[in-house]
């Protein structure tokens, strides 16, 4: 038992304890014999390495220093070492959390949009998805802005779409559906992602 303990101290002198080093340090702090072996093994090494030059003075100030710092205030401050191990799992945790939030938000957005489109198709079979008829770069840019944009349409369709009460009812139904879905996906407060083009006079945008 004692031999095994001292062998561990010998390994610790060479910093060869690996993962169990901390527990050996705990033992060192508790056990006077281990502490003494720690000092002597280091001193043996010092004497061996100094055999070539011979210029070594033996000093033993451990007890004096220990007594002197007994009266010193205890050091208590956060560890801020470059060499101190950094908690990698914690850093991974942050990145994982951020990635998770991002993925969840993306999935929720796509689901909401798909669901909206699906419902729009189901409730508006006669109108359908209005095809984007690109005419100018500016209008192309506008079309890209919204996933369910209503862009430039044919005049006849436009008249049909924007003809009075029917359009307003459909738009109201869509907005009501959106609010209901938003509540389900905890996306309250988000404006409906739709843009209607007002071509003057008869149009009722947004």
């Amino acid at each position, binding site marked *: 038992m004692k031999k095994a303990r001292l062998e561990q101290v010998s390994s610790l002198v*060479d910093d060869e304890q690996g993962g169990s080093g901390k527990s050996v340090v705990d033992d060192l702090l508790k056990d006077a014999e281990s502490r003494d072996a720690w000092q*002597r093994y280091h001193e043996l090494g010092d004497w061996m390495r100094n055999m070539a030059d011979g210029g070594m*003075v033996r000093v033993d100030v451990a007890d004096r220093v220990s007594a002197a*710092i007994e009266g010193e205030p205890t050091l208590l401050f956060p560890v801020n070492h470059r060499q101190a191990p950094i908690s990698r799992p914690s850093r991974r945790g942050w990145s994982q959390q951020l990635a998770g939030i991002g993925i969840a938000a993306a999935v929720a957005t796509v689901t909401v949009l798909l669901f909206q489109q699906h419902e729009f198709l189901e409730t508006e079979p006669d109108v359908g998805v209005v095809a984007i008829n690109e005419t100018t770069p500016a209008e192309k840019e506008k079309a890209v802005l919204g996933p369910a944009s209503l862009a430039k349409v044919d005049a006849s369709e436009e008249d049909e779409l924007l003809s009075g009460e029917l359009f307003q009812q459909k738009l109201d139904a869509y907005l009501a559906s959106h609010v209901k879905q938003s509540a389900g996906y905890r996306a309250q407060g988000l404006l409906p992602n739709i843009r209607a083009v007002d071509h003057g006079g008869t149009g009722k945008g947004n």
Partner: protein
Amino acid sequence: MADAPNQRSNNSANIDVELVRRVQQGDKGAFDLLVRKYQQRVGKLVSRFIADRSEVEDVTQEAFIKAYRALPNFRGDSAFYTWLYRIATNTAKNYLVAAGRRPPRSDVDITTGATEQGFELEGDQSPEGEMASEEIHRVIRQALEQMPEELRLALTMCEFDGFSYDEIAEVMECPIGTVRSRIFRARQSLDKKLRPLISTNEVEEAV
């Protein structure tokens, strides 16, 4: 034989970090372990500036106390022993200035104790000091000669060459556990013969 304090100091970086961390969390006992580990090397460094043995002890003690007080400023940018040696060097120089003596004009190499001009400073040149050193070295040589070869090889590769246990195991073609055991047994053997010469207070009290 080669003087290899560099290798040993580098090998000891991890345990130093652990001990410093503990001191910074309020464990004064961990600082005691650092003192026990480095007191001979700091004493040797101080003796390059100061010849008188009792003065060397006083300045060494002062250097460690200054290091303890300065530990809140130690951020681990350099190795602990380098930082400690810098404090010891400044403490020794300041001591000489305060005593009205002139400190050496060039800095001391922390690993060899040599100055930039290539010579070593004073050291302990007293007859008693020389005799004690000679006796210790004689006993070490004798103990190493009488030691089984595998123990001597393992210990000298570790202490003189700064080899890791892995490297020694590779050279000696044996398991790392065997290296650990051989180095320990070699130390025990040396310790037994050197105890009368370098015994610590605790051992003297215990015996």
